[in-house]
């Protein structure tokens, strides 16, 4: 089980802030493919992953990062703090 979180317009497109999913995906990219194949709203949110950032267990990471032992994944657009 893995907690998947969405922020900003990714959250709005998918329509929820967080979900817990059962997955056999080995990497973040595999998980993205799995989510995209689920429903149109996921396909829309992940249409261009170059426009997205990912955090693995609350650390900025890459789409080729492995999911083994990971508890929390978050997808969001580039950050706009300050």
């Amino acid at each position, binding site marked *: 089980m893995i907690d998947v979180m969405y922020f900003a317009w990714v959250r709005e497109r998918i329509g929820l802030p967080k979900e817990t999913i059962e997955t056999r995906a080995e990497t973040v990219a595999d998980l993205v493919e799995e989510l995209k194949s689920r429903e149109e709203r996921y396909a829309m949110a992940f249409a261009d992953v170059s426009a997205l950032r990912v*955090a693995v267990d*609350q*650390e*900025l990471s890459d789409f080729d990062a492995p999911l083994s032992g990971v508890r929390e994944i978050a997808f969001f657009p580039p950050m*706009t*703090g*300050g």
Partner: protein
Amino acid sequence: MTIRVQQDAFDLGAEVAGFATDRKDAGALVTFTGIVRDLTDTDLTVMEIEHYPGMTEKALGAIADQAAKRWSLADVLVIHRYGRMSPGDRIMMVATAAKHRKDAFEAAEFLMDYLKSRAPFWKKEITSDGSEWVNSKAEDEAALTRW
């Protein structure tokens, strides 16, 4: 070092007056304050800031740690708000105290450059016409290369 992520407004004067007062070796204190501005064509009525509770505090702490390793600092303060704000409201502040001003100035700029694109905050502008997420700027990403 103090990192605060909060919804409430902060008192800039009180924060600065109380900052690094126990460090008599610090001869320089630099502050930066970010304020909600209205650059939209229509009237900006609200700026909404979303963040990632848990990761936000960690990311800001890591950025402040990097600054403390790189410059000789007596103290660092970062306050960043989230939630709904109006034009003119203070969004965030950083303060750095150091023996000499060069360290204090450079560390404050470094903190600002990094927290703009490496701390998980997202701004949304809400106007009379609707709402729009603020896009990140290529120049903000490019600003990191100078460090």
